[in-house]
């Protein structure tokens, strides 16, 4: 992967205020593939009875990771924006565990980038959530 491109993606995603407030970190950047993680935090709790974090926080991580994957695709020029994103919540994220997401931009056309992602906690056998979406291409 081109260092210049990698740096552009890194710089773009390092300064998003909402991502910063959720504590998101980039784990790796490849060609159309990005890994990100988000630490557990009590302020993200969505269900006080179980202390499981809110689906919206997982959605944010997946959306950010998918956007980064779309941007890191070799044929993608400039930044991107979400057209639509669907998230399936397959099981509650285990409280006190970090959430990791890996997104892949598996197809890129003139106008649309198609992206899929998976969110995991420490049990990597069973995903917490999966996402599929479309993103704007061409900058």
């Amino acid at each position, binding site marked *: 992967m081109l260092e210049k491109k990698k740096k552009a993606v890194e710089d773009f995603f390092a*300064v*998003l*205020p*909402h*991502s910063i*407030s*959720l504590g998101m970190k980039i784990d790796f950047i490849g060609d159309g593939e990005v890994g990100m993680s988000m630490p557990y935090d*009590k*302020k*993200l*709790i*969505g*269900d*006080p*009875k179980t202390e499981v*974090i*809110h*689906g*919206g*926080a997982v*959605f*944010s*991580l997946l*959306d*950010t990771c998918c*956007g980064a994957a779309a941007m890191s695709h070799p044929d993608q020029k400039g*930044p991107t*924006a*979400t*057209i*639509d*994103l*669907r*998230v*399936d*919540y397959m099981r*509650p994220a285990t409280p006190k565990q970090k959430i990791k997401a890996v997104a892949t931009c598996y197809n890129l056309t003139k106008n649309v980038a198609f992206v899929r992602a998976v969110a995991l906690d420490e049990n990597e056998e069973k995903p917490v959530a999966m996402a599929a979406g479309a993103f704007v291409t061409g900058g």
Partner: protein
Amino acid sequence: MAIKSPEPVAVIKKRRNKALSKLIKSIPYISFLGVEFDRRGDEITAILPFKNDLVGNPNLPALHGGSIAAFLEISAIIELSWMQIWREIENPKLKADYLIDLEILSLPKTIDFSVDYLRSGLPRDSYARAKVNRVGRRYASVHVEAWQDNRDRLFAQGTGHFLMPQPN
């Protein structure tokens, strides 16, 4: 038979507002995003006052897709729970000062949530209203619309499916 006089409006409002605020305050993520709720009768509008922490692209600036999705999902969950609570607190068979015990109340769980980003979210307050299109014993389907200045110009909409809490 004596006609029962209607409840004073202040009593009714107090009961409803107390139940709604108890529900909202029980969820930390709602305060984290700063979502507020406006209640008119049983109808609630979710409000997301603008703050910098919600921004995705700081160059435009535009709201982060994640904060928009979370706002929509919160609206849907609160609408579903509020319908449940409303049925209980407005049940004439129960005592007038009956307040649902939220320690016992379980929240609906999201099965899936899908968001359409129609326009970029401007750096200003957002509003959302959820409509429960179907609710059964186990599953519910909810549609949420969000707008900023103009009710007719939606900037995002979402549809989600939820697993309803099961009575013990």
